[in-house]
């Protein structure tokens, strides 16, 4: 606090900052923002690449969001484009698992997804913040309709297995009580003149009034059961109509219990820039974007093609590949330029004649562990019994998150929810299990929050990203140190080869990182190609 100016208004700002940081601990921001940094997309608007040299060609490796963004724009600019893709489908990590799909992970275990028609999970990306303008642009261009993704649901749960006897608490209650108690404390401190040195008398009046409003305090600046408080945290009996109309207010939880529970840690999840309303999901699953892109680029993408070597010389790049299903005979393709979007754990093992600095950069970024498990239940009990429509429950159990479907509300029949979304050591351990064991464990843990689980469970699928055959990990984990040492080297064009993808961005773990890194790289490649002419 205090950066030397010491004016009354500055210390007020500092004070409000303090309130903000009490309510939203910075540590939590880091821990729970989960994927990515709070960085605004650098998407520059629709791409223009004028004056492509006649007949210039480019090979793009990987048909994920980065590769397909590049393919789309370079084709439009007049380049001869070919894409090599390991999978039998387009999209890469942009992917949905639907009833009837099958998925074989590394090690050979295959899962048949037995969800009902139209039900799905997104094993990878599931949300698009409104300010990811590149993703928004391509979804629109490809005609993929979006619907809201509910990041914050006041009626979903915050759960600690060590607090409140393991009973999940509604987000609404925890938030109201936390704000209420903090407001009361701060009001007390203000009225006992503890803040006189930092806040002027005039401002103290404003502060008190704002605290009353913010925390739903009563006339004595205390946080106690009242209609106003129930309007925040909910009623024991909701107001209604007619003779049975009279509401019964609810009682706040004591401050000590709330602090000890640790549940406040999850309160700020929706305050992080990347998680702020509005967020979107494609209707029918995130994979709709990759699928639409694949159709759009169809003749350009060669599927089931596993790149095994990348070699450049003075006039072009030769890429060796095999059939990824049969490991059949080696084939080669050649072009003037190459844009490689292969995830780094895979690329690190592919021979490629580039500079030592680029090689070191490729080897410097380990990929995070992550596991997602989709569970189909015989009915949408979270809606029917608990009135939770979309959004996320957070828990200290190994499953970490439960994501409720943000679509198909109140529809009859079965429902699929995201039964776990975990990282770190939790995810590593679940990766080491068989898919059946993962699903079973997730059902067991989840039943501590939703007792209906065991009775209503139907079937499930589990995706552990370190076993994903096409990425061998969830996303690239950069640190301040590795960024300063290697990031620029990773993004620099090396002769005729450039890298792009989520790993080559400051939006790590976001599709927008893949899109913006691709646009940035092809812009630079294009400048070089124009400067050099065809050769």
């Amino acid at each position, binding site marked *: 606090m205090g950066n030397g100016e010491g004016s009354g208004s500055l210390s007020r700002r500092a004070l409000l900052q303090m309130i903000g940081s009490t309510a939203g601990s910075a540590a939590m921001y880091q821990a729970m923002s989960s994927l990515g940094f709070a960085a605004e997309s650098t998407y520059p608007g629709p791409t223009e690449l004028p004056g492509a040299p006649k007949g210039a060609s480019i090979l793009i490796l990987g048909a994920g969001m980065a590769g397909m963004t590049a393919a789309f724009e370079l084709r439009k600019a007049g380049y001869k484009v070919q894409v090599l893709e390991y999978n039998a489908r387009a999209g890469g990590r942009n992917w949905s698992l639907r009833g009837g799909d099958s998925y074989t992970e*590394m090690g050979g275990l295959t899962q048949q997804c037995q969800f009902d028609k139209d039900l799905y999970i997104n094993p990878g990306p599931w949300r698009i913040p409104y300010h990811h303008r590149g993703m928004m642009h391509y979804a629109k261009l490809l005609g993929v309709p979006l619907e809201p993704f509910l990041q914050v649901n006041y009626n979903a749960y915050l759960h600690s297995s060590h607090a409140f006897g393991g009973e999940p608490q509604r987000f609404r209650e925890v938030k109201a009580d936390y704000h209420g108690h903090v407001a009361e404390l701060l009001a007390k401190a203000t009225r006992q003149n503890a803040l006189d040195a930092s806040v002027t008398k005039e401002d103290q009046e404003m502060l008190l009034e704002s605290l009353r409003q913010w925390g739903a305090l009563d006339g004595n600046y205390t946080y106690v059961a009242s209609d106003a408080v129930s309007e925040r945290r909910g009623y024991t009996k909701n107001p209604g109509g007619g003779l049975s109309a009279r509401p019964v207010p609810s009682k706040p939880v004591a401050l000590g219990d709330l602090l000890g529970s640790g549940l406040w840690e999850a309160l700020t999840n929706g305050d992080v820039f990347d998680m702020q309303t509005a967020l979107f999901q494609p209707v029918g699953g995130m994979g709709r974007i990759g699928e639409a892109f694949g159709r759009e680029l169809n003749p350009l993408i060669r599927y089931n093609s596993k790149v095994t070597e990348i070699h450049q010389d003075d006039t072009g790049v030769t890429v060796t590949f095999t059939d990824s299903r049969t490991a059949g005979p080696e084939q080669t393709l050649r072009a003037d330029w190459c844009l490689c979007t292969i995830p780094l754990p*895979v690329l690190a093992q592919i021979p490629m004649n580039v500079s030592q600095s680029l090689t070191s950069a490729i*080897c410097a970024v380990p990929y995070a*562990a992550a596991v997602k498990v989709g569970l189909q239940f015989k009915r949408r009990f979270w809606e029917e019994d608990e009135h939770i429509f979309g959004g996320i429950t957070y828990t200290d159990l190994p499953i970490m998150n439960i994501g409720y479907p943000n679509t198909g509300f109140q529809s009859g029949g079965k429902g699929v929810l995201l039964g776990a979304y975990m990282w770190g050591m939790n995810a590593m*351990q679940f990766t080491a299990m068989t898919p059946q064991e993962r699903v079973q464990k997730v059902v067991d843990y989840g039943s501590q929050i939703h007792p209906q689980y065991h009775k209503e469970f139907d079937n499930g699928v589990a995706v552990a990203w370190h*076993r994903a055959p096409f990425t061998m990990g969830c996303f690239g984990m950069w640190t301040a140190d590795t960024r300063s040492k290697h990031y620029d080297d990773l993004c620099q064009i090396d002769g005729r080869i450039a890298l792009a993808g989520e790993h080559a961005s400051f939006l790590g773990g976001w599709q927008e990182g893949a899109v913006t890194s691709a646009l940035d790289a092809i812009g630079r490649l294009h400048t070089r190609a124009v400067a050099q002419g065809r050769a």
Partner: protein
Amino acid sequence: MKGIFVMLLILASSVQADSPAFTSRAAIGSLNGEQIYDHICQGCHMPGGAGAIAAGTYPKLAANKKLVSWQFVALTVLNGRNGMPPFGQPVHHEQSRATHLTDAQIADVVNYVRSHFDNNFKTTVTSKQVTGLPHPTAELMGPQ
């Protein structure tokens, strides 16, 4: 050294009773070499050290001649390499996504893989020897 090893085993067996296939973050520090392999390493290297091949490869650890050098194995586990994450990072806060094993555990898992899966290397490595090797700092997670 032996004392620590025995203690680890005792702690670990109580962990096992709790749940055979999952250990809370807090209890991970008490897993022994075999358990670390089953809970963590086999996520990539597969049961029995069989390895796996897809777009890239998780090397087979079974009958792997490279394991002759305990330093090579210990350095790989400590600092990671390419797609292998480092396990020698300093401990972070509870929700951390970092992967951390103690030097004693790393010694134990190194000994385990070098003496199982058709590997028969007689020399064993101690926690102290692992401590003597370069570790990643909080900032440096990549390979050396």
